[in-house]
Structure formats: C-alpha cells, structure tokens
C-alpha cells in the first residue's frame, strides 16, 4: 500500500486550487476585490503567461527541452513521454509591482495573487507514452490607474476618482500525449481549449455620499481551440557515461477565437447591457519555441530557451487594448523571449544524502521584448529567477519555492517602468498508480 494516498490528496488540492482559480478566470472583477498588476497587461489580450513547471520557472522559463520524470512541463508535449509515475502539480503565485512614470508624483504599488497551473500526468506506458491534462492561464489583464478630479454641481463640490481598470484574461485547458520513438526521439501533441473574458472597466467614485459609484464595463468573451505539437531529441554519453543533451521544439498553431463584446453598466449581479452584443473574432498568433538542455549525472542541469510570437500579425474585429482595427490603432509587436538557467543537486541521484544535499538549487534569467509597443516604443523585460526545490520524506514529492525579480519598461516617452517581484509555491507529487499485482 502506498504510504501516500496521492489520489485523495491530489483531489483535495485540485478542488482548492480550482476554487481559487475561478475568480482569476471569471469575467467580472467583483466589487471590492483588488488584484492588480502591470499597466502593460491592458495590451492585446493581456500579459502573456508562460508557466511551464516550477522547475522551468526558476530556470528563466527554459522548458522546451527540459526533461524530467517528476516535472511534467506544459510547453512541449513531446516531453510527456518521460513520465514514469503519475504526477500532479499545483501552484500559486503572489506578485508585487511598483510602477513609475515621468509625470506622476508618486509610484503605484500593486499586488496580485494567481494560480499558476494545475496538471495531472499519467504514464500509459512508463517512459514511452504519457498522457497529460492541465490547466494554466494563457494571459492575464489586471491593471488599474486612477485619475483624480473635482466636480462642481449646483449643490455640491466633490472630489472624484476616475479609475481605469482591466480584469480577466484567457485561460487554457488542454490534454495530449507524448510518445517516445526509439531511444532518442520523442514527439507529442495536445489539443488546447482557450477561453476567457477580457474586461475594461471605467469606475468612478466620489467622496460625497450624495453621488453613487458608476461602473461601465466593456467585456470581450472569447473561445477557441488550437493545437500544440512538439518534438525532442536526446543524445547521451557525450562527455561522460551519465550525461545527456536534449534539443526540443514546440509550436502552438495560430487560432481564431470567436466571441462577443458587450458594454454593461452597473454591478456584477445587476448589470444593464447598454448596447446590442457584438460578435467578432480575434486571431492568436503562432507560438514557436526551441530549447536545449544539458544534464550531467543527477547533479547539474542547464537549460536555454527561445520563444517567438508574432503579435504583429494579430487580428481582431473586436477592439482590445492597443488594437482597434476600425480606428487604425495597432500597438502590438512580435514578442521575443530568451531565458535560461542552471540547477544543482548536491547529492546527485543519491537518496541517502541529507535534506540540504537532496534539495535542488536553481538560478536563471530571461529577457523579453513585450508584445506591445505603446507610442511605438518597444518594452523590454529583464528578470532574475531562482529558487529551491525541497525533497519530501515521501519519494516523488517536491515542494518548490520560486522567486523572480525584474524590471519592465522605462519612464521615457510616456511609458511606465515596472519593478516587480514574484514568489511561487508549487507542490509536485509523483506516485505509481497502476501497479500490476504479482502472484508468486
């Protein structure tokens, strides 16, 4: 009997995390809920989220060629063939952003929590054929800025705040298979369902109680299906008997999301639709990524990734932040990201070493040119990533604590400079579920 009833506990975590996920994916930002991030999340369909696994997150986001029997990454379905045990992971993150620009007197500070992803992987044929179903956010919109002012009426003079807020984002649920062909090559594919709502809210509050808060929201609800295809090739024993070099590639096809746009007035449960619902579509661009990883014994791992998303080809009949076809507005540009990192496990594959030696220590970095170019200025992000993966008494369970600190943008040319920090907490479980009973 397994010392750790993974199925039951996994289900508990799944339910709890899914409960937490609902507000993050809900189309409506509940009144009084504060959950904000960067102003740049208003562009396109939101700030892109590329969580692959807690391991990859700490290695600068390098994940396309990062093979692991425990970490079942999201990015490349070909790597799902590596599964030897049933794996489950769930994680949450907490981000803080300090934003400044050239004109505002002070800085804006925001914090936001989110669910980074849920994943369940099942080895149909251990180390040969693996099935994975997963959820992770595709993008997130969570900005807020406030314009103060004074209103004079016949009876009152009151200060007001005109808040421009963005909420929602797209979610992604997918399932697929990874297959090993021979000893070196593995391929995989997944079907990805993308859905969600992006909402831009104009909320006006008044100091004088004689005035009531107004809320006018423009919500765009989208849904569609796409596919991801990946491959990886591994060469072994290059410089020693126990090393491996893996090269991986993955593509997510461009897809057309269909949806509707509504303009509403009022609170979340008491909204009036101001105008007829408008149907339309948005076309997400291709996502292409390639990577390389090198593992030396069980002690060292290094990974490097590059990602390309041609958002300059984004098309939408529904206006979104920074893009309005009818008004000729297009602030979107191709997104490029390069990241990498190294991992050290002092104990290597030894299971008898101490707790500190069996922990994994990771450090990475990435640079990214964002998918937006407001005022025709590219916005770049550089960040340092890292963290530690703590082993558990139960074999196959890891408790990962990650961090990320970086800066995005500049205060020149009406842009905003974000200094951000992020922490993640992820649980990864691995357990053999389907054991063939043997009778001697």
């Amino acid at each position: 009997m397994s010392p750790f009833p993974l199925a039951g506990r996994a289900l508990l975590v799944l339910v709890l995390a899914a409960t937490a996920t609902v507000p993050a994916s809900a189309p409506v930002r509940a009144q009084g809920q504060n959950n904000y991030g960067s102003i740049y999340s208003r562009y396109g369909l939101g700030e892109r989220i590329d969580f692959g696994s807690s391991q990859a997150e700490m290695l600068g986001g390098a994940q396309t060629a990062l093979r692991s029997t425990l970490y079942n990454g999201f990015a490349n379905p070909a790597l799902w063939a590596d599964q030897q045990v049933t794996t489950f992971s769930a994680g949450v993150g907490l981000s803080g952003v300090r934003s400044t620009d050239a004109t505002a007197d002070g800085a804006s500070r925001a914090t936001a929590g989110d669910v980074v992803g849920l994943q369940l992987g099942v080895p149909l044929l251990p180390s040969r054929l693996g099935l994975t179903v997963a959820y992770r956010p595709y993008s997130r919109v969570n900005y807020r800025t406030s314009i103060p002012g004074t209103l004079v009426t016949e009876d009152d003079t009151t200060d007001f705040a005109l808040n421009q807020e963005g909420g929602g984002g797209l979610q992604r649920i997918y399932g697929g298979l990874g297959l090993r062909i021979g000893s070196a090559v593995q391929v995989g594919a997944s079907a990805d369902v993308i859905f969600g709502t992006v909402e831009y809210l104009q909320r006006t509050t008044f100091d004088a109680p004689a005035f009531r808060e107004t809320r006018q929201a423009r919500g765009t609800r989208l849904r569609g299906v796409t596919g991801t295809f990946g491959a990886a090739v591994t060469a072994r024993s290059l410089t020693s008997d126990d090393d491996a070099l893996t090269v991986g590639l993955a593509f997510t096809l461009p897809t057309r999301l269909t949806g509707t746009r509504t303009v509403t007035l009022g609170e979340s449960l008491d909204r009036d639709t101001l105008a007829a619902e408008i149907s339309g579509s948005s076309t997400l661009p291709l996502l292409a990524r390639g990577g390389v990883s090198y593992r030396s014994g069980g002690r060292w791992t290094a990974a490097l990734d590059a990602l390309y998303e041609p958002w300059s080809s984004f098309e939408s009949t529904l206006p979104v932040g920074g893009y309005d076809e009818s008004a000729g507005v297009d602030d979107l540009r191709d997104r490029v990201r390069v990241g990498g990192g190294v991992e050290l496990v002092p104990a290597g594959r030894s299971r008898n070493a101490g707790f500190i030696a069996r922990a994994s220590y990771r450090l990475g970095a990435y640079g990214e040119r964002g998918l937006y170019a407001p005022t025709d200025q590219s916005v770049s992000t550089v960040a340092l990533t890292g963290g530690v993966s703590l082993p558990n008494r139960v074999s196959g369970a890891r408790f990962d604590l990650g961090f990320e600190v970086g800066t995005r943008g500049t205060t020149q040319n009406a842009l905003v400079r974000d200094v951000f920090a992020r922490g993640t907490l992820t649980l990864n479980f691995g357990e053999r579920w389907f054991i063939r009973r043997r009778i001697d």
Partner: protein
Amino acid sequence: MRVSALVQATAGLALLALSACQDPSTVGLGLIDDDASNPNVRVLAATSVDTVGFDLVTSGLADLATPTQARVLVGSVLDALYGDATATAYVDAIAPTLPSGFGDRPVTRVTLELRRDYVYGDTTTALPVELRQVTATWSPTGLPADTTLATGELLTTTTMTASDTLAVFTLPATWVAANDSLFTSTAFASSFEGFELRTPTVPGAGAVVGFNVAAASGSVLRVATARDTVSFRLSEVFSRVTRGAAGLAPMGRRLLRAGVGEGLRFVFDYTGVLQLPLAQAVFRLPIDRTLAGPTGAFVRPLASEVALFVRPRTGDPLFVTTVRTVGTGDARTVSNSSLTSLVQSLLLDAASYRDFQVRFPTTPVSLDVLPLVIDGATPATQPRLSLTVVGQPT
C-alpha cells in the same frame, strides 16, 4: 504528516493570494488617457410643463391606519390669485373600552374637541363652524373628494378665530339626552356615522383651517357622565374641498395649490445623455417665494414638499421621491438615490417612460401652494433635471 502540512499550506496560500491590494495612482495615464471620461453635469430643462388632474383623495383613517388621513379642513376663503376655496369636514369616532358601570349613568355632556394645526387665509377671521350629525353611511376608502354626505339638522354653531389652536364644539343637551344610549351601545360603530363641520358664508377674505385628527394631538369626542369622562378617538375622516376660479397668474409663473386634485407633468429630452452612466440625478423646481407665505394677516402656506412620480409607458404612475422646499432657492429632491436609479433606467430605456409628475401629498390634506417659475428664459428658470453623468455620448 509533512505532506498534509504542505497540502494545507497550499490551500491557505491559494486563498491568501487572492486577497491582494493596490495603492493606485496616476501612473500610466499616458498609456490609457484616451479612454478617460470625466464626470460632468448636464442640465435638462423641461421641454413641456402641463397641468394634469388626478383623483384627489382627502378621506382616510386617523391615527396611522391605512389609508391614512391626518387632517380635516373646514372653512371658506376668498383668494383672487389661487382661487377661492371652501372646505367641509366629516369626522367619525370609535368607542373605547368603557369604564365599569359607565352605561348605568346618564351622559351629561358631549364635546367634540379638535386641535387646529393649519390655516390658509386671514388668520384674524372669526370663523363660524356649524355642526351636524351625519346620517349617511360612508366609508373613507375610495370616497370621491367632491362627495357630500347627508346630514341631519344643525346641532350647534361655534365661532372660532382662525388662529385659535383648540376648537370645542359642545353638543346641545337635547341631542345628548336623545342619544344617551348611543355612547354605551355595542353597536356604536354602526349606529353613529360622525359629524359634519361646515362654515356658512364668511365675511371678508375668510380662512380655511385644518384640524389634526390624531388622538395624540388632543382631537377627540369627549363623553361625560356625572362620574366619568371617556374620550372617543376619531376614526374615519373626510374633507370635501371645492375651488373657485383662479386669477391670472403673473407672467412666467404657474400657480399650483393642493386640495383640488391638480398636479404638473414634465417632459424632458434625454438626447445627449442616453446610455451614459449616471452618478446623481436631482429634480429641481424653481419657485417664486414672493407668491407664497404671509401677506399681512393673510397666509398662503408654501408646500414643504410635493411627491414626484414617474409615469411608465404602461401601468400606473410610480412614486419616486419627494421634492422639498427647505431653505431658499429651488425646490429640489434631497434624497436622490431612488431618483438616480430611476433616471439611470430611463437613460437606458427612455421609451419605457412617459413623463414625470408632481403632486401634493394626500395626507395631511391642505391648501398649500407651489408658485413655480416657468419662463423658459434659462434652464435655471425652468423645471429641470440636473444629471451628473460620466463620459460623453458615443
């Protein structure tokens, strides 16, 4: 177990992660100010103001029962500006629990005592008030305001000065003796239909006075024996109010008086504010206070409030809020929450509503006046809606 602790930690962090905060500022305005739309005030002057009639209700039950009527009017006044008016009051009473042995002793004295709380007209007028017993069976529910109830012969006439605060009508001894058993009868409610109070021709300008009919005010029918005095509370009450022709109103003024089933209807043009978010709506009625209030001894009370109704495309008018004349300047809505909600609905679906109406309150019945300024020269001299909207029409 350590794993159990990890599970609990994850769940806790998942919940904590959602309770984040922000210190908002103007950072980033350069990226989104194209979307910004400041709140601004739009004044909609009424495009038409018309007098409308409606069924006047002056009857009711004293002491807060439904339908409530807290006052009756009696008197006659000559007013060249707002029109002459004559009022006749009807009051019924209800028997209390009688003291032990009350019915064994003869009734010696019956008085109707009424507490005055209102006067319209010449406050120095000596007002003769005639008292008669009502012989008709009547109900205060659905009673037309021009109803005349059948009465018996004149019982007594009492002259009061319009400024007196208490009027006492003493029933003649012959009537008391003839109705001795009435006040101890268990069938009092069905046997007694009350009194009529009427004024004959009044010399001079005259006055109409109002009596508070609530028992707490001291208005009661007092029945005494040699040993006990019992107070019968007033129950069903009614005022018949008739109006003579009004004079010509000054230019740019619309004179409105309560007690005659008359109100005003206002139509607004919402073009330019349709579909906009609304932060506040205030309904304003400019008034000319020189055409109300006292002129020497002659008093025309300014209505302290009128009721604002909205008339849907279908169905009965809906009460929205009250318009008050407190302080100086315009009469206006003070508590605007319900009006703001209503006007917001109207801005989203203007076709569902016809117009706004103002009416005088049905209780307490009065002859209050509302001299409106309607000259159309500027929005400030016209009934209007002041709307604080956010943004511009698209």
